[in-house]
C-alpha cells in the first residue's frame, strides 16, 4: 500500500507441472470479484514439465497496466524459485516456502521469511499439490483477508470436483491460515475491497470474444503459441455461439479456408504467430487482390524463427508490413491491451468489410497471454456492425460488375448464391467484370486503372480511422512513443517519472496502416525530445516511423531479451537518455525467468 494507494504483487514460482495455475487463478478471481484491479503475467518456458515458471499477480485499487516492478509476496514452490528470486525482494516483502524441502538462503535486508511446515500442516493428505492450497491459506492471512473469502473461492473453484475435494481444500487452507495467523505478521494494511466486481480475461479471450461480438461465424486455426488461446476459446464456445471452428492441416490451409468462408459471406478470422503468419502471407495478398474482407491475427513472440516461443517481443512489424508480394491494400492495427483488443476486432471487421480487403491485427504474448481485469460495463456486447457495400438481398441486375470502377473505388459486393449476380473473382489482375487481363491482352491502361481503383477504395475508407493523440501534458520535457502493448508500461513509467519531477507524455501508435503521417509528424516535430520504447533489437518501429514521416527520434529504449519491460526499466532509460544524451538504452533484466 504505497502513498498512491494499493499496489501489491504476489508471485508464485515453481516448475511446470507443479500446478501453479490453480492457486494463481483462485487468487486472481477472488481479487477480481472483490473489485480489485489486477494484471497477471506468467513467465514460463516452452516445456511441459520442469523448467521455471513465475506467475506475478499485481493488484491495485485502480487500473493496472503492467506486472509492475517488484514482488511483495513470493511463494516458492521449489528451491529453484527461492534461489533465483529471493535476492531481488525488497524490504517489507515476504517469501513463503515449504520449510520441509526448501532452504531459504540469505535474504536481503528487511525481507520477511515465512517458512511453512507443509508435511505437518498437510497431515495425512495424499494430494501432491496440497502445498498450493495450504499456501493459499497462508497468503490470505498475510494479506489480512478473512478466511471466509478464500473459503468461498475454493468452493467456487472445486465444486465441479465434488464435496470431498472442496472439503479437503478448505481444511488444508484453514490449516495454512491458522498457522500463518499464529506465526507470521500480516501486511500493515489488509487488502481493501473495490467498488464492484470486475470481470477477468486474457488478451486472447478478448480477441476471440471480440470476434464473436463482431459476428465471426468461421474461425480456423493451426495451434501456435502464443495465439492458441484464441483457438481454445473459439472451440469451447463454438456450439453455443454458432461459430464454425476448424483446426486445419497448416496455416496455409487456415488462411485460405478463412478466405473461402469470407467470400461466402461470413465474417471469418484466424490467429497465429510469426512462423504461421509467414505461411499465410501469400493468401493475404490473394484476399486483397480478390477484394475479400477477412481478419488475420499475428500474436508476436520472440524471434527470429522458432525463437523463444513463450517469450514476448515486438519483432514481427516488418514481417506484417511485407506480408505479401506487390502493392496490396490491407489494414494493420495493434491494440494496446485486452479491452482494446476486444474493441478493435469489430472495428477492424467494419473497416475491412467496407474496404473489401484483409485486415491484420498484431498482438503479442504480453497482451494475449496476460490476464487483465475489466469493469464488465465497459465491454460493449453489441458493437456496431457495418458490412459496407455488401448486398445482402440484392435484386437481379443484368450487368453486375464485381469490380465496378466506381468513383469511390468500392464495388458493391454480392456473395455466391444470389441469382443474377454470377461472377468470378481472381488473384490474377482483372478487369471490372473479373475477367483476367493477362488472359488475352494485358492492357497496361486496364492494369493501371485496376491498381488505382483498389488504392482509391482503400484510402477512402482509411480516412475514417482516428489518428493517434498525445496523452499527458502537452508541453512535456520528453515524449515517449510506442505501439501496441508497450502502452501500459509507458503510461506507468510516465506516472513514476512525474514523481521524480520529469514531465513526460506519450504517443501510442495503434494504427500501423493507415498511418497518420501528418498528425504524427506534427506531434513529434513539436515535441522537445522524442524517445521510442520498443521490444525489438533492430528498432523496427523506429524505422517504420521514419519511413512514414521522415522523423528520427532522439533516443531509443529497447528490450529484446524475451522479458517485457517493467516500468522502472523505462523510467531509468528515460533518465539516462536525458542525462547522457546517448542514443540508446537497453535495460538490464533483473528477474531471471
Amino acid at each position, binding site marked *: 500500500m504505497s502513498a498512491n494507494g494499493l499496489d501489491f504483487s504476489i508471485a508464485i514460482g515453481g516448475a511446470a507441472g507443479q500446478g501453479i495455475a490453480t492457486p494463481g487463478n483462485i487468487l486472481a478471481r477472488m481479487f477480481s470479484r472483490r473489485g480489485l484491479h489486477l494484471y497477471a503475467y506468467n513467465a514460463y518456458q516452452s516445456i511441459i514439465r520442469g523448467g521455471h515458471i513465475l506467475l506475478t499477480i499485481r493488484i491495485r485499487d485502480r487500473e493496472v497496466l503492467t506486472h509492475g516492478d517488484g514482488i511483495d509476496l513470493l511463494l516458492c514452490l521449489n528451491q529453484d524459485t527461492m534461489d533465483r528470486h529471493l535476492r531481488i525482494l525488497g524490504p517489507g516483502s515476504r517469501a513463503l516456502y515449504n520449510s520441509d524441502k526448501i532452504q531459504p538462503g540469505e535474504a536481503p535486508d528487511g525481507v520477511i521469511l515465512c517458512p511453512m511446515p507443509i508435511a505437518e500442516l498437510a497431515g495425512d493428505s495424499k494430494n501432491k499439490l496440497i502445498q498450493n492450497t495450504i499456501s493459499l491459506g497462508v497468503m490470505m492471512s498475510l494479506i489480512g483477508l478473512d478466511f471466509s473469502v478464500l473459503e468461498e473461492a475454493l468452493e467456487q473453484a472445486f465444486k465441479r470436483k465434488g464435496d470431498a475435494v472442496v472439503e479437503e481444500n478448505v481444511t488444508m487452507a484453514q490449516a495454512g491460515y491458522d498457522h500463518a495467523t499464529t506465526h507470521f505478521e500480516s501486511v500493515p494494511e489488509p487488502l481493501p475491497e473495490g467498488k464492484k466486481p470486475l470481470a477477468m480475461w486474457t488478451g486472447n479471450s478478448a480477441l476471440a470474444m471480440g470476434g464473436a461480438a463482431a459476428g465471426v461465424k468461421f474461425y480456423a486455426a493451426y495451434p501456435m503459441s502464443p495465439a492458441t488461446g484464441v483457438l481454445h476459446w473459439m472451440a469451447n464456445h463454438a456450439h453455443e455461439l*454458432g461459430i464454425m471452428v476448424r483446426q486445419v492441416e497448416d496455416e496455409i490451409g487456415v488462411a485460405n479456408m478463412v478466405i473461402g468462408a469470407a467470400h*461466402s459471406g461470413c465474417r*471469418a478470422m484466424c490467429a497465429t504467430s510469426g512462423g504461421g503468419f509467414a505461411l499465410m502471407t501469400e493468401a493475404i495478398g*490473394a484476399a486483397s487482390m480478390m477484394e475479400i474482407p477477412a481478419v488475420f491475427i499475428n500474436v508476436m513472440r520472440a524471434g527470429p524463427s522458432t525463437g523463444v516461443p513463450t517469450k514476448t517481443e515486438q519483432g514481427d512489424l516488418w514481417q506484417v508490413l511485407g506480408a505479401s508480394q506487390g502493392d496490396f491494400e490491407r489494414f494493420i492495427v495493434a491494440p494496446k491491451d485486452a479491452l482494446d483488443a476486444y474493441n478493435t476486432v469489430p472495428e477492424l471487421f467494419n473497416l475491412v468489410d467496407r474496404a473489401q480487403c484483409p485486415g491484420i491485427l498484431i498482438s503479442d504474448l504480453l497482451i494475449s497471454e496476460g490476464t487483465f481485469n475489466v469493469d464488465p460495463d465497459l465491454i460493449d456486447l453489441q458493437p456496431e456492425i457495418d458490412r459496407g457495400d455488401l448486398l445482402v438481398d440484392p435484386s437481379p441486375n443484368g450487368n453486375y460488375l464485381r469490380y465496378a470502377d466506381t468513383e469511390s473505388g468500392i464495388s458493391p459486393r454480392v456473395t455466391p*448464391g444470389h441469382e443474377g449476380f454470377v461472377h468470378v473473382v481472381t488473384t490474377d489482375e482483372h478487369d471490372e467484370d473479373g475477367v483476367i487481363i493477362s488472359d488475352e491482352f494485358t492492357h497496361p491502361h486496364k492494369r493501371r486503372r485496376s491498381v488505382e481503383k483498389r488504392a482509391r477504395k482503400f484510402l477512402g475508407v482509411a480516412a475514417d480511422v482516428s489518428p493517434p493523440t498525445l496523452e499527458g501534458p502537452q508541453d512535456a520535457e520528453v515524449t515517449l512513443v510506442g505501439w501496441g502493448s508497450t502502452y501500459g508500461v509507458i503510461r506507468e513509467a510516465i506516472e513514476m517519472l512525474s514523481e521524480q519531477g520529469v514531465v513526460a507524455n506519450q504517443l501510442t501508435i495503434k494504427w500501423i496502416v493507415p498511418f497518420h503521417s501528418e498528425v504524427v509528424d506534427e506531434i513529434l516535430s513539436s515535441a522537445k525530445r522524442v524517445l521510442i520504447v520498443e521490444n525489438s533489437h533492430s528498432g523496427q518501429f523506429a524505422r517504420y516511423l521514419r519511413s512514414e514521416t521522415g522523423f528520427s527520434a532522439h533516443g531509443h529504449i529497447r528490450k529484446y531479451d524475451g522479458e517485457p519491460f517493467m516500468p522502472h526499466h523505462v523510467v531509468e532509460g528515460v533518465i539516462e537518455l536525458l542525462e547522457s544524451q546517448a542514443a540508446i538504452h537497453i535495460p538490464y533484466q533483473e528477474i531471471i525467468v
Partner: protein
Amino acid sequence: MSTATATGTAEMIGLELARSPESPKEFKGKVTPDWCVGCGDFGVLNALQRALFELGLKPHEILCVSGIGCSSNLPGYLNTYGMHTLHGRSLPVATGAKLGNHKLTVIATGGDGDGYGIGGNHLMHTARRNIDLTYLVMNNQIYGLTTGQVSPTSRPDMKTKSTPFGNLEYPINPITSAIMNGATYVARAYSADPKHLTEIIKKAIEHKGFSLIDVFSPCVTFNHDNDFAFFKPRIKKLEDEGHDTTDWKAACEKAMAWGDEIYIGLFHENDRPSLDSLEMVLEDDTPLSRRPLGLSSEQGETLIGRMM
C-alpha cells in the same frame, strides 16, 4: 449496416435466371477459353457444363473454385460463381466457402501440379475430412502454364524442361492415395470420353462427401508422351468389368494398372457421413453466411458471467 444498392428490373436479368437453364450452353462463361487448340481441358469444361445442366442446377447455386494453371482458368469459362485463387489452394478455399454456405454446390478444379504437387497436403486432409465437394483434377502429367516442367504424375524417365535427362521420381497414383486417405468417391475419367466423364461428374456432385475425379486431360503442347494417341487404345472402363466399388483392394489394383490397359470409371465409393452433415453448428440449416451477426444479450451475459 448493410446497404442494398442493387437496381435493375426483371427484364435486365442476364443468363442466370430462376428457371433452370435450357441447354448446357447457358453454362458458358464470359470468355472463350484460350487453351491451345486440342487441349484436353476443353472436353472437361464441356462435360462439366453438361453435367450441371443435366442435374438441373442453376448457375447461381454453384461455386467453382480453382488454383493456378492452364486447367485452373476453367472458372472464367463457366457461367457460375467462381474463384480463381492461388496455386495449390483451391481445396481449402472451397472448404471454407462450402462450410460458410453449405447450400452451394461447390466444385474445385485444377491441374495435377496444383492438386498433387503444391496442393497435395490439402488433398489428403480434405479427403479425410470428407467435405462435400467435387474435385476435378485435369491431369495432363505436366506443368502446362509454366511451359512444360515435370509434374508429380509425369512418367518415370520423362524428359521435360526441368528434367532434360529424364524424370527420376516415381509418380503419384492419385486414386490409390485418395482411397487410402479416406475420400468417399474416387473416380478417373478421360477428357476424350465426354459422355462417361459427364456421368462421373454428375454422380460425384450427387455424392454427399468428398469426390475426387482424376481426369486424363492431355496437354497437346508440352506432353508428347501421354497424348490422345497414347490413351486411346489403352482406356478401359471399370463399368465394363463389373468392378465392385466397395472393394478397396480391387480398386487399388485396377488403379495401379498402367500398361496396355488403363482403367477409367468409379473406383471406390462409400457413405461415410460428410463433415458438414456431422457438424453441430450446421444443425440449424441456415447457411452460416446468412445468419444474423453478433451476440444476443443472453449470450453476452453468459460470457460476462463466466468472466466474473
